[in-house]
């Protein structure tokens, strides 16, 4: 009399099938279980990647199905790497990445440090601080355009209050010097809470006993911060940097809503540029080469970073 579910299944399996399975090795059974995932991975990730690499050596355009596709060798890569406009978008992306990460890590860690203290209303403040990251980036982009409006925007009035400058005298998204900062500020406002949450997890994972031992050794608060808190939170911080770095490398919606990539090309990030090449100009071969270059860049940088992260964890 079968009583466990497994026994019931075994009993219900037709004899012919049961015989076939009985003949399979453990390795074969393992492959049967893994095969669907591998197939899905190949179909969804690996095949498109190989196809993209292949397309990158052609002049294929998806909107010209009747046009002959020519093999152009490395011409797409040469054109991309020799194009000063693309290097400008790389610079814009680097500026955006660097400053959003620096500001989000500094402010996020500071907020986490404050929230980690026990005080009344702690939970309420955490909820309020986390609120921006719950919004859609397109919505955030839209309302920051209002905040930055010189005549009615709150941002300009706040700056005016502190500096005395006329609110209508500067335009955050229209000025070539200020626009790159306008997207950094909006992204920092939105995603600092995410870094804060990761830092908070790191801070709360430090056992109190370590601080108590340090107190016994008469270590100052400053000393405790640099020798206990920072080293123990560092792996979490590095993880936050990795997440934000990857996310911001592909930043699109918020910036498109806010500046449309302008003025000129000053806030045209690589993802915006790539989208224009691929889905507005429909230069499929060219944009495939562009995507491959970006993939190699991100993959290379992320690999180096992950190695560094593992070393920090091992310490």
């Amino acid at each position, binding site marked *: 009399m079968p009583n466990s579910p497994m026994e019931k299944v075994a009993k219900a399996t037709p004899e012919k099938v049961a015989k076939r399975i009985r003949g399979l090795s453990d390795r074969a059974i393992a492959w049967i279980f893994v095969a669907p995932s591998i197939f899905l991975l190949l179909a969804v990730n690996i095949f498109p990647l190989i196809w993209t690499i292949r397309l990158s050596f052609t002049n294929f355009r998806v909107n010209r199905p009747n046009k002959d596709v020519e093999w152009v060798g490395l011409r797409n890569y040469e054109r991309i790497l020799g194009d000063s406009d693309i290097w400008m978008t790389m610079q814009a992306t680097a500026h955006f990445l660097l400053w959003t990460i620096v500001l989000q890590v500094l402010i996020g860690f500071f907020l986490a440090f404050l929230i980690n203290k026990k005080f009344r209303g702690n939970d309420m403040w955490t909820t309020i601080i986390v609120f921006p990251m719950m919004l859609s980036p397109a919505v955030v982009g839209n309302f920051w355009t209002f905040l930055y409006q010189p005549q009615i925007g709150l941002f300009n009035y706040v700056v005016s209050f502190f500096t005395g400058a006329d609110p209508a005298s500067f335009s955050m998204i229209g000025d070539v010097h200020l626009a790159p900062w306008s997207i950094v500020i909006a992204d920092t406002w939105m995603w600092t809470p995410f870094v804060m949450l990761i830092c908070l997890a790191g801070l709360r994972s430090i056992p109190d006993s370590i601080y108590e031992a340090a107190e016994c050794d008469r270590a100052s608060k400053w000393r405790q911060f640099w020798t206990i808190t920072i080293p123990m939170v560092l792996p979490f911080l590095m993880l936050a940097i990795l997440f934000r770095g990857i996310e911001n490398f592909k930043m699109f919606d918020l910036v498109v809503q806010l500046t449309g990539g302008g003025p000129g090309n000053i806030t045209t990030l690589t993802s915006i540029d790539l989208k224009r090449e691929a889905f507005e*100009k429909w230069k499929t071969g060219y944009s495939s080469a562009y995507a491959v270059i970006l993939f190699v860049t991100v993959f290379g940088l992320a690999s180096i970073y992950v190695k560094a992260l593992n070393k920090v964890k091992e310490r």
Partner: protein
Amino acid sequence: MKTKITLTAITLAAAASVQTAQADELTLCWAAWDPANALIELSKDFEEKSGHEMGFEFVPWPNFADRMLNELNSQGQLCDLMIGDSQWIGGGAENGHYVKLNSFFDANNITMDDFIPATVTGYSEWPKNTPNYWALPAFGDVVGWTYRKDWFARPELQKEFMDKHDRKLDVPNSLDELKDIAEFFQGRDIDGNTVYGAAIYTERGSEGITMGVTNALYNYGFEYENPEKPYEIEGFVNSEGAVKGLEFYKELYDNGTPPGSSNWYMGENIDAYKSGQVAMQMNFAFIWPGVEADPVVGGGNSGYFPNPAGPYGQFAQLGGQGISVVAYSEKQEAALEYIKWFAQPEVQAKWWELGGYSALKAVVEDPGFASSQPYAQTFLDSMAIVKDFWAEPAYAELLLAMQARMHNYVIAGNGSAKDALDSLVKDWTETFEDEGKL
């Protein structure tokens, strides 16, 4: 009696089943804007007469091209009818997205001679100036200007303007006069509010700044190509006149527009005008019915004028669209039926009444047309001076290059006007070489 009733019932049921079998559900794709709502209203008549059901897919302008060209390129069957932008006609024809309508027009006595010539060239023909038709002109549109008639009429402003410029504060006859007026209003206090000169097109992402700057470029001598030698652009796109036209647009932006208007297109210009921020706005004619109906700026408080002349002549950027049958539709017969219905003079007359800009001569040349709306004469005058952007299959590449170069100079202030136009020549030449046209 009983047999009679049964027979009648059978006949009715049979008729109903025939009707059901013939009735299709058509989807018409267009931009999400005021005229689209008017078209829904107008189409009710078609539904009634044909038995077909109309569905609509409207996408806001900034995403319209993205969404719809994606649909066409992927050979999607979402749209049976497409009111596509005039620039799509080359790609629509060459890439097989649109059904050629010549034989259909011939069979149904629809002739392109009945429509405003500029709209036929702009919306229907590919190659241009050849009798190959891929669309029926559906909505005539053109860039023009709206101004605050009530502000212009104020005696104190009239006097001050007269003292300064030695002429009446009135509709400008030239682009230079327009700039004077914009600068006159810039930063001025009206009824306790600071107002500005003009809202102009500056948008970066889609087509905004190109649709604006061309209104200055054309009138200063910009040409798309050598009229004698197609695709020869050096010396035409970056001619001396074109450089001056671009410099003019930048001066207008720098000295006569509201602060923060660095990424404005149709919607932002409407908002700025209706909220009393600006004395004038550049915009497509489709907004004029909405301006007239507005409780603040409408009802005689606004006036309209065509894009003023420059040293080279008087031209205006063409907008508007034609209606095409999508080649991937499985309901082409019903879609053609819609076009046949839409082409009728009485339907076109009703289209104009509802706020749609008909391109049918019978409507616009009617003696009562010019006085039918305060903006009707301006519409006619503007349609007579139109020029359009490239309609090549590679139009998107050409447009994006122009967007980047113009924005980089006019808004970001990088380099000179000559640099911007020289760079544009380089970009466009590269595109035409890739296309095998050079």
